[in-house]
């Protein structure tokens, strides 16, 4: 070959090689198979520390591993007597939630075009002060966390600003508190699950998401020895679906959504048979439904109902309570009936029964008591503001709550928001509610702040666990408690406390607990229940109770997956794997129903359909599951987020936006209605 020819060949060959994908693919493959690449995170290692605190998401006591200043992992705290070291799936996500992309990193202000722009904290503080000053006497405050002593700061701040409009998000606690107080209970209603030997739970998924979950499950562990010896606690679960609690219960009693009251009336009737207790309220009520009629209306058999009653009667420490999945209050009627049943069984203020947890005086002079706050109803407030029967507040503070996502359109949150001149969202994570507010301020995540968990709903005794920061706040987040105290100072308001650690020390002192000791150990302070003579429970309110409504023909059962976060967290990064294919598939929420139901509706397994309610039609994928009642479809809540981060969005629809709320006659408490249809897609 000549020189020129060779050069041509070499040049052509080079160009050809470079242009051909072969060489790049080979290089890529080589990098791949030799694993020689830089984009896999290299691990960092530093000094290890283990810090005891508590999860502000569900009250699980934690030991958090910090390595070289980085928060690595939340584990259970084995030394904690309340939880015995157990960890819930939500609390297991704490470290990832601390760092996830949905964190609000800097203050954000909404511009006239609706878009958000970063502002610095000094500007944010100026707006905060100005707006609060302008809204004197017209401030409303909503918080998602009913178990924090910091509510004393927030409610005192609201009161000092001339308003009483301090609200919790709607919950079972609100309805149960209302029932308890109406029937003569004086403090907080308590459920002594730890000392009961027979539990009937109507709808409350108490081994998964209801009440003091980590504690309930530690009790379950203790009462159910792995060595096969006899269990120390019988569990009966009544509800529409064989859920997590039902899977390990001694018996599952199918009860259709919307018929919980009827079921409890049936139990009451059966208990009243041959009972020496003569009470006009009981006889009036038990006459409404014979066990047979109640069973028929609920969808269970009379035998199942009778079996539960005989188990309750034969147990030495039975306990009956009712509840729902997150935020789906059933009104106060079910709780009144559950209280009446406990009363019939002689279980009020008894070990392992319903106990009166003494009311704790607020820590700050102008703070409102938890029981009073619980009497205030955010949904009623929104509806009244929306329809103009109540003047809209000028300013709304929202602390880590996500009502825009979590509440049914019947709550009229959006319409209410539209009438409020200025809305400020204090949020750790960017949520659907943030996206409706004028100012969004980054607040410290639960692992970045001082806080506490004080006798959360579902407790059986007064208890208290301290949360302390395991790390400095990330990004520009600030602890809300400190921010509100500073704001009060600026406005010349005296809340009676200088900082949050002092407030928590006040709590410790009020309980007679050693603050430093609890701060270091992460232990849960627990008060022994004294032998109360009070309250005297009165069944009188039941006399005026309306007869329960008839069951809907077809019912929607909305349930939660404890791993998949809550409305304020979105779906934690690792939780996607814990969402099962019977909850989300092909981008659609799954509606589970049994074969007979599907056949009746002309639907087959894995076909597309719509859940239809008064609030619209939601696409779903049908999946057959025999652990669910006839004429009922179960859909998981917690999907369909439009905000948060990549781990939360593009996953089905938000079923909560298709649910309906009615207001309970008498109490005006929200009752989630299960009426729905499923139609072919």
């Amino acid at each position, binding site marked *: 070959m000549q020189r020129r020819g060779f050069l041509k060949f070499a040049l052509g060959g080079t160009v050809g090689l470079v242009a051909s994908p072969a060489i790049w693919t080979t290089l890529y493959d080589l990098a791949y198979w030799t694993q020689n690449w830089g984009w896999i995170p290299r691990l960092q290692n530093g000094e290890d520390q283990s810090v005891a605190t508590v999860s502000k998401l569900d009250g699980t006591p934690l030991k958090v591993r910090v390595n070289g200043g980085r928060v690595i992992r939340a584990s259970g705290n084995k030394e904690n007597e309340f939880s015995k070291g157990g960890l*819930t799936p939500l609390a297991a996500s704490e470290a990832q939630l601390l760092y996830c992309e949905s964190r609000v990193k800097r203050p954000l202000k909404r511009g006239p075009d609706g878009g958000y722009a970063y502002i610095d904290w000094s500007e944010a503080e100026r707006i905060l002060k100005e707006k609060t000053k302008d809204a004197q006497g017209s401030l409303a405050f909503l918080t998602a966390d009913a178990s924090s002593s910091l509510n004393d700061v927030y409610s005192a701040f609201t009161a000092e600003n001339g308003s009483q409009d301090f609200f919790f998000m709607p919950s079972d606690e609100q309805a149960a508190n209302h029932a308890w107080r109406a029937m003569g209970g004086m403090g907080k209603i308590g459920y002594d699950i730890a000392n009961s030997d027979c539990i009937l739970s109507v709808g409350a998924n108490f081994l998964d998401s209801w009440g003091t*979950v980590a504690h309930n499950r530690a009790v379950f562990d203790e009462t159910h020895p792995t060595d096969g010896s006899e269990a120390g606690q019988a569990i009966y679960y009544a509800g529409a679906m064989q859920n997590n609690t039902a899977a390990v219960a001694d018996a599952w009693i199918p009860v259709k959504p919307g018929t919980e009251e009827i079921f409890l009336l049936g139990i009451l009737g059966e208990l009243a048979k041959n009972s020496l207790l003569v009470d006009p309220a009981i006889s009036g009520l038990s006459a409404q439904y014979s066990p047979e009629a109640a069973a028929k209306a609920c969808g269970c058999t009379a035998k199942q109902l009778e079996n539960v009653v005989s188990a309750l009667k034969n147990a030495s420490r039975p306990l009956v309570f009712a509840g729902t999945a997150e935020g789906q209050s059933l009104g106060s009627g079910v709780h009144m009936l559950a209280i009446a049943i406990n009363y019939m069984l002689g279980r009020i203020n008894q070990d392992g029964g319903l106990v009166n947890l003494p009311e704790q005086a607020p820590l700050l002079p102008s703070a409102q008591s938890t029981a009073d706050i619980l009497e205030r109803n955010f949904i009623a407030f929104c509806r009244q503001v929306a329809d103009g029967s109540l003047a809209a507040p000028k300013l709304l503070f929202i602390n880590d709550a996500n009502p825009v996502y979590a509440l049914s359109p019947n709550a009229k949150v959006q319409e209410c928001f539209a009438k409020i001149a200025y809305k400020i969202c204090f949020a750790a994570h960017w949520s659907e509610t943030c996206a409706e507010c004028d100012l969004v301020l980054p607040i410290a995540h639960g692992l970045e702040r001082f806080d506490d968990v004080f006798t959360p709903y579902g407790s059986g005794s007064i208890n208290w666990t301290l949360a302390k920061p395991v790390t400095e706040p990330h990004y520009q987040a600030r602890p809300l408690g400190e921010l509100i105290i500073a704001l009060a100072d600026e406005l010349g308001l005296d809340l009676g406390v200088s900082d949050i650690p002092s407030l928590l020390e006040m709590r410790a002192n009020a309980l007679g607990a050693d603050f430093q000791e609890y701060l270091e150990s992460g232990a849960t302070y627990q008060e022994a229940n004294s032998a109360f003579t009070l309250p005297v429970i009165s069944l009188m309110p039941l006399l005026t109770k309306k007869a329960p409504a008839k069951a809907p023909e077809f019912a929607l059962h909305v349930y939660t997956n404890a791993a998949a976060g809550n409305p304020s967290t979105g779906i934690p990064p690792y939780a996607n794997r814990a969402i099962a294919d019977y909850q989300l598939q092909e981008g659609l929420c799954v509606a589970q129903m049994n074969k007979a139901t599907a056949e009746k509706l002309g639907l087959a397994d894995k076909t597309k359909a719509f859940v239809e309610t008064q609030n619209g039609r939601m696409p779903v994928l049908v999946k057959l599951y*025999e652990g669910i009642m006839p004429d009922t479809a179960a859909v998981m809540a917690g999907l369909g987020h439009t905000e948060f981060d990549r781990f939360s969005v593009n996953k089905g629809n938000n079923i909560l936006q298709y649910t309906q709320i009615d207001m309970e006659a008498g109490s005006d408490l929200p009752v989630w209605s299960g009426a729905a249809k499923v139609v072919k897609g």
Partner: protein
Amino acid sequence: MAHFKDFTVRYGMVIDLDKCTGCGACMMSCQAENNVAPQEDASNKLRALNWLKVYRLSNGKEYPEHETVFLPRPCMQCGNPSCVTVCPVVATDKNEEGGIVSQVTPRCIGCRYCMASCPYHARYFNWFDPYWPGDLKEALSPDVSTRPRGVVEKCSFCHHRFMKAKDKAIANGEDPLMLPEEAYQTACTEACPNGAIVFGDLNNPEHRVYELKQSPYAFRLLERLGTDPQVYYLSKREWVRRLGDNYLEQEETGKPLQTLLNNSH
């Protein structure tokens, strides 16, 4: 039956299915402990990667006879691991005291023979580049290397914890092969608030698993294949035990393989 290899120490689990509520705390803890990359969408279960997965089981009957049980499935760390024998590059082995089947991801060529051979679906292929968006990588544990796309991974019984426990025992002048039960526990065991998972040395009478595995309610998954799984399950419900293997209709559960073989001759 002969073992692939005999060990003085054989770590294993006994999982009480009558205590599991299927909450997934074990799954969540496992991912955080072992730096499993989070997945934006894990709804396609053929592409989702789980070292530990909780299944919902059914007794197969129609409503109202239906019953549900949840079953957490880690790697069974089989005594006779079919995955090990098929691996062409010895990226997986069962060769260390403790009896844990290793997975050496830097050596794995991603051929997935092991996945095909594992009867328990305990092995997963990394279909995607591992990615911890934003600051999420701050929460990476320093104990377990991250893995690239294109390799197979599986549960290791938190092997790094075993190493740490042994190091500690050696430093204290104790026998690393006689660890007390609490010295080495997996992340899922620790997490389970119901105490459904019991972990320890199956050969050590001091460990709870030693007794528990002999319970009349104990069974293993597909044990008649001869894989000799080191994970046992407990259930008082016969139908649950029956789901553990392919039983004939009239056949009783709880019969060791040898008895069956003897009877068949």
